[in-house]
């Protein structure tokens, strides 16, 4: 699988958030987005996810045979973990992840294993409203374990995580990459070994 962006520009409301952005991410590679707040890191992730339209330029997601993925197949090819966590305080932890599994089209039996691997199994029947910030982030990231998808789009994944969980995420990412996965992440923290890097906006 390959992700290729060519001279991309995107519009947010009335503002051009970035222009002339190009990158290439191949299997086993990670791309880290750098830039001050408002420079368009989140916007670029949303553009790659197909949630936001492209103003100019071209974006292609190619499968292993080099064919461009379109529409449905494209949407199922990546995990998108944004800084919004899609967690409602009134639902229980297990209910939340089950719902996310259903939305993703992932089998329900993966839910318990995912809760387990992210250290949330003991909180399964608790209301999501009682979770700490770190636990909420873990619940968001648990989606990554619900289904194997080649491309991971991560927006500030390490925020609010303690050192142990950050290390765990690091390991999972490295494992993902070693199996031929791709990662595009917006983050200030180093956790991905030696990734490619893309600077959006002026250097800090």
């Amino acid at each position, binding site marked *: 699988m390959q992700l290729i962006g060519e001279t991309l520009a995107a*519009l947010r409301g*009335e503002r051009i958030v970035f222009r002339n952005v190009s990158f290439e991410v191949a299997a086993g590679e990670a791309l880290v987005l750098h830039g001050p707040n408002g420079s368009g890191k989140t916007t670029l992730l949303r553009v790659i996810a197909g949630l936001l339209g492209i103003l100019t330029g071209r974006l292609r997601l190619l499968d292993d045979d080099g064919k461009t993925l379109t529409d449905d197949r494209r949407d199922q090819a990546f995990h998108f973990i944004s800084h919004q966590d899609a967690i409602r305080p009134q639902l229980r932890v297990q209910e939340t992840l089950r719902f996310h599994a259903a939305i993703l089209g992932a089998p329900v039996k993966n839910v318990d294993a995912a809760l387990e691997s992210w250290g949330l199994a003991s909180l399964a029947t608790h209301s999501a409203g009682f979770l700490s910030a770190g636990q909420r982030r873990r619940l968001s990231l648990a989606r990554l374990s619900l289904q194997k998808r080649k491309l991971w789009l991560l927006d500030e994944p390490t925020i609010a995580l303690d050192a142990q969980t950050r290390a765990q995420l690091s390991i999972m990412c490295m494992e993902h990459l070693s199996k031929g996965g791709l990662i595009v992440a917006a983050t200030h923290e180093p956790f991905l070994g030696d990734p490619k890097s893309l600077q959006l906006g002026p250097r800090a």
Partner: protein
Amino acid sequence: MPVLAYANPERFARLASSLTPWFLGSAIGLLLAGLFLGLFMAPPDYQQGDAARIMYVHVPAAWMSMFVYGCMALASAAAFIWKHPLADVAAKASAPVGCIFTALALITGMLWGKPMWGAWWVWDARLTSVLILFFMYLGYIVLWSAIEDPARAARAARILALVGAINIPIIKFSVDWWNTLHQGATVFRTDGPSITSSMLIPLLVMAVAYNVLYAALLLIRMRAEIAERRLRSIRLGLEFEPK
């Protein structure tokens, strides 16, 4: 896609500015002619006398209120299908004009009702439909102004115009149906049992006048809207070369 070269709208704006004086002129001419025919030449209504002459203003206005919404819906459909920027502009520009026709119809309806029936308002089928249309215009205009991003506002407005257009025949039918069922309460014949040709002609003249006026106002408003968009895109440095 949405904000590239504005060559087309500019050509349209130039065309519009040359056409506008003609449209305005003919509109005023036709209006004067229609009013003259209606207020002086046409025979008085056999039942309601001279006061019914206000119908020459009221009835075509009611027709226009529905016609303009139809135009808005067509423009919105065109925007959906062909994504032509002028289509959204046409829909947005039509709304206030349609709203004014609605208000005109409502006010003249009230002015007609008071001397005739002693009531400032009656719930007859036409007035009720026009009142509902008034609120639909209002909702459309509010939606445009409530959404800050103009591109998103345009897309939202398209949906509203189309959903409204589907609903209007249903609303009209239900209001007519409701009115005929509750016949006992009010009988407000705004047309009379038969319209003689001498009454029909002023009505048609006024209808044509309103249409030309709508066209003129539409052109004026569209020019203004295009100019505003041009200004906005210059300010944002969005003038790309088309790919």
